[in-house]
């Protein structure tokens, strides 16, 4: 087991070490410099692994702010948020002068995750705090377009983060290799940048897992990670599916692609809201997707592969033939941002939980952190480095089922 995750080891400590999104960085700094009571709060949004959380931490550190991060339980209800954030938001400038700093900043990360599903008064509380605060408030989210977040969006300056461009990711990977004393072929970096899809954190994680104990990194080592040249294919396939004129055409578009149906299901699921805006159309599309998922689940349990054609029909034609609104192809998102937590079989969920618990105990992290920060990493290792995998298995005391699960989910995405 590596001593330390490189994504932590190389987490930027200075502003210039944050790559990409140069405009967003400067806009954010400007906002903070000019912030005064009555100004809008800020909402940093965009895909994961692009440096939103890091930027907040680095800026407050470099400018001498005291960063106060609130977590989900601090803000669930109005009472909770009033008692945790209230006193800080009322912090007076006298305090700031006395303590000789720039003052406090309140930071609530991943608001979409916290409020996206249910709101027990937390949003109302937060809005009140935002309205009355004496200190800057920063929010961050991957997807800020949930209707529940509408009022929050209105009270914030929205700063968008984009996926980071390949040459910049390559520059960072190169720098890390220099630090680690690893010689790497230029092509190897390009492959890693491509595979990351612009997610800096996953590029660093992949780099660490392919390097392992190596001192020289060749293209072949990286290629074993499994390339995602499927990305170009996806654009074509999804356009074909969404704009098919009939059932046959929709199925054909899927069959012509090189993407397996599991991945396609996740991909379509993720892209539906980009393609459709009418809630009724969207709802029936999601219905078709879940019907497809039920078929896949039945196939997995019964091995009755004759059901496959129904599943595929639902997932392709089922989402395109309902189309009522006029739309045109968009830039589709791929790979899917998260593996949907289908929980198809209970045991799968239990396996994941068991693994995360063991990681948590050994690495002193929460089960949630184990899930987001360690599991992706384990998947890659378990598919590429059998020696390291068996070492980790015995260290974490994983059982055979858990090992099988890690190998399998790694293969499927």
């Amino acid at each position: 087991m590596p001593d330390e995750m490189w994504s932590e080891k190389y987490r930027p400590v200075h502003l210039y070490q944050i790559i990409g999104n140069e405009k967003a960085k400067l806009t954010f700094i400007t906002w903070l410099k000019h912030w005064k009571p009555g100004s809008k709060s800020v909402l940093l949004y965009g895909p994961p692994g692009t440096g939103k959380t890091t930027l907040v931490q680095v800026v407050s550190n470099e400018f001498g702010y005291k960063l106060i991060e609130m977590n989900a339980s601090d803000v669930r209800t109005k009472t909770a948020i009033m008692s945790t954030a209230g006193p800080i938001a009322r912090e007076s400038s006298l305090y700031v002068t006395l303590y000789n700093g720039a003052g406090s900043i309140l930071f609530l990360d991943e608001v979409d995750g916290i409020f996206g599903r249910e709101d027990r008064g937390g949003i109302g509380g937060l809005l009140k705090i935002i309205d009355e605060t004496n200190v800057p408030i920063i929010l961050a989210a991957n997807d800020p377009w949930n209707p529940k977040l509408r009022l929050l969006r209105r009270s914030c300056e929205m700063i968008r983060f984009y996926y980071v461009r390949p040459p910049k990711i390559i520059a960072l990977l190169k720098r890390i290799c220099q630090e680690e004393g690893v010689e790497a072929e230029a092509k190897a970096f390009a492959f890693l940048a491509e595979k990351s899809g612009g997610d800096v954190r996953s590029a660093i994680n992949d780099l660490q897992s392919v390097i392992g104990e190596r001192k020289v990194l060749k293209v072949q080592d990286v290629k074993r990670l499994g390339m995602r040249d499927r990305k170009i294919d996806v654009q074509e396939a999804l356009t074909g599916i969404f704009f098919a004129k009939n059932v046959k055409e929709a199925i054909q578009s899927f069959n012509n692609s090189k993407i397996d149906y599991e991945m396609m299901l996740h991909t379509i699921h993720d892209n539906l809201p980009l393609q459709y805006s009418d809630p009724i159309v969207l709802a029936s599309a999601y219905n078709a997707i879940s019907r497809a998922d039920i078929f896949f689940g039945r196939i997995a349990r019964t091995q009755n592969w004759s059901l496959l054609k129904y599943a595929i029909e639902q997932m392709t034609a089922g989402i395109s033939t309902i189309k009522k609104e006029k739309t045109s192809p968009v830039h589709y998102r791929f790979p899917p941002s998260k593996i949907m937590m289908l929980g198809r079989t209970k045991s799968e969920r239990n396996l994941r939980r068991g693994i995360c618990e063991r990681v948590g105990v050994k690495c002193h992290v929460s089960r949630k952190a184990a899930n987001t920060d360690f599991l992706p990493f384990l998947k890659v290792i378990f598919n590429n480095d059998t020696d390291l995998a068996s070492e980790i298995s015995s260290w974490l005391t994983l059982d055979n089922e858990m090992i099988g699960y890690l190998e399998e989910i790694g293969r499927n995405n």
Partner: protein
Amino acid sequence: MKVITTEGFKLPYLGKERYIELLRIGVRYEKKTRTFFIQDISNVDQIKKVLSEILKDDIAFAQKCIICKSRFVCEECEFTDYCETKNIPMLCICRACYSKTDFAEEYFASLKNQINNHVVS
């Protein structure tokens, strides 16, 4: 093909409707210099569509190299196949700068400069 830079471009006379449409999707007009600017790139696809209708030509947005400050279009880049932000006007690294062996150092030096200038100003 016409290349549009974020730092200002001219347009032929527009009707009022077109003008308002442009403002709505994130284009700003400076009366004094009669120049248009792209203020907000979140609607870049729409801006592209409207501008190419106005100019009756395909358009591309210029990318700007953060290292040498030159301008270029995405078609020239070797990463277009899988770049997630293709054709969105942004700071990037041009082909010539990328081909130098020390481009990584250069990139971080440029970032450092950019931050220093901004924080001072």
